[in-house]
């Protein structure tokens, strides 16, 4: 069980992001949502580079909520990139997209998404989603995102080894 999940939201729509911030707080998320506006920023954040270098300010998330349709690198490309990073292979990635196209859903799972959620169009629907996600994260048992075995099998940078500090998974 995770005490306080850290959620990174990858979404280019600032209004959606703001609605999510309000609604997730209402659903009981203690840690504030972290936001990046596009796929390239998501990669920079997850890699702990550039302006996201400081892991105290920008901790490695335990869960990523990611839109698909974004300028620059889209959600599929970011997901593909994440699954190629040895130290991020256990990172939970939930797609949160307006698309309910069967081909998009299939492709997301093929690339290793942990779940696929369609953006609700009402405030009530979004609140329900946030509450369900909260309950799900509370009852689930997850392995640490990075651990000793992973560190041995794949050398990780100094950047990512520091994530033990923020990854509070048991």
């Amino acid at each position, binding site marked *: 069980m995770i005490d306080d999940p850290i959620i990174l939201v990858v979404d280019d729509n600032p*209004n959606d992001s703001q*609605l999510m911030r309000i609604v997730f707080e209402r659903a009981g998320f203690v840690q504030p949502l972290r936001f990046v506006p596009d796929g390239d920023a998501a990669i920079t954040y997850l890699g702990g580079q550039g302006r996201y270098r400081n892991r105290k300010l920008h901790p490695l998330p335990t869960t990523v909520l990611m839109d698909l349709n974004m300028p620059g690198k889209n959600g599929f490309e970011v997901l593909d990139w994440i699954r190629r990073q040895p130290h991020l292979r256990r990172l939970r990635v939930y797609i949160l997209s*307006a*698309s*309910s196209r069967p081909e998009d859903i299939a492709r997301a799972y093929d690339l290793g998404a942990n779940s696929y959620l369609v953006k609700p*169009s*009402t*405030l*009530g629907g979004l609140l329900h989603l946030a509450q369900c996600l909260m309950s799900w994260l509370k009852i689930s048992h997850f392995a640490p995102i990075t651990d000793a075995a992973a560190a041995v099998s794949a050398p990780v940078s100094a950047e990512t080894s520091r994530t033990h500090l923020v990854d509070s998974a048991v």
Partner: protein
Amino acid sequence: MVTSALSASELRYRRVFEAAHDGILIVDPATRKIVDVNPFLSGFLGYAPAEIIGRELFEIGLLPDAAAARDSIQELRERGYLRYEDLPLRTRDGRRVWVELVSSLYDEGGQKIVQCHVRDITERKRSENALRDAKRKLALHAVELEATVSLRTTELQVSNRQLETFVYSIAHDLRAPLRTMQGFSELLVQDHAATLSSQGREYANFINQAAQTMDRLLSDLLAFSRVSQQKIELVPMALEIAVQSALAGCDSEITASRARIECVPPWPSVMAHPATLRQVLVNLVGNALKFVESGKLPQVRLRSEDLPGGMVRVWIEDNGIGIPAEFHERIFQVFQRLHTTQYPGTGIGLAIVQKGVERMGGRVGLASVPGSGSRFWIDLVRAGEHARPPADKGDASP
């Protein structure tokens, strides 16, 4: 007497020879030289009779060369008869004409002679050529026409696909600003009610309701676009399962309207795309529940009927307000709504029904009298041993 009778006969045949409208030649097979020609033929070929007599056939263009002339005479000697059906030749002044040439070898009291009949068939040949050209042109046009039709069909398919992709992205991208309108107008009412006047709250509700209406419209447009463009693979499916699944999908409406639903067995199996058939039935049952006079409890009956020709008809009958005959075709078109105020809707539901059924190789229609309910039907292909696909697909089993 004998002499005069003979000369009378000679005279008679000479007149026939002179007046004939076919060309006649007499040739001596021993020398291959022309010994007589009638006026028609010399006129036709453009020579004076004196220019022809004493020449060989090839010299006046009737045969290609001396060798051909020799061969012809040889063949005549052997068979006694020779016929060329269409021989091209040039007249003295260079005109191109076509003739039919029939030659026979006769014995005239110990002496052999060849008699040739030459018929001008230029006109016939011209007609034949014109006909052949016309036929060739026609065939060419047919090929061109086919190519054009095929090209147009391809273009149409491409533009159809583009249109459907376009509809999809519109419905998809338009939802982003809608979420904003809906979300924040709701937050306004929920969190800032105290600072708003009652009119301010009312306005925020208007925005919220309009956004919800538009959201339904976009959902239905999306569903229509999906039914139109998704890949559809038909598999045998028990109708009973499709009907039960659709009724489960309408559960909340059925409960809310306190409707009585009746399903009448037997339910045969049909060839269907499960998701599409479910959507079609959900829309038809939803329609039956919705269009009822206020205060009346909806009654919906579902049953099937065997049709000749390997089809199964599914009936969805209601006790609703009914539809006048003049609207029976129009109601299946997108955005066609007969009742705009008392019954909410987007006018896409029945368009989805028609598109879905057509894509499964079936037809849709209705029998309805205003005031006594509607009876919608969909025809689907009955699933039989012959209709079964060669291999069962894992995701297709009902």
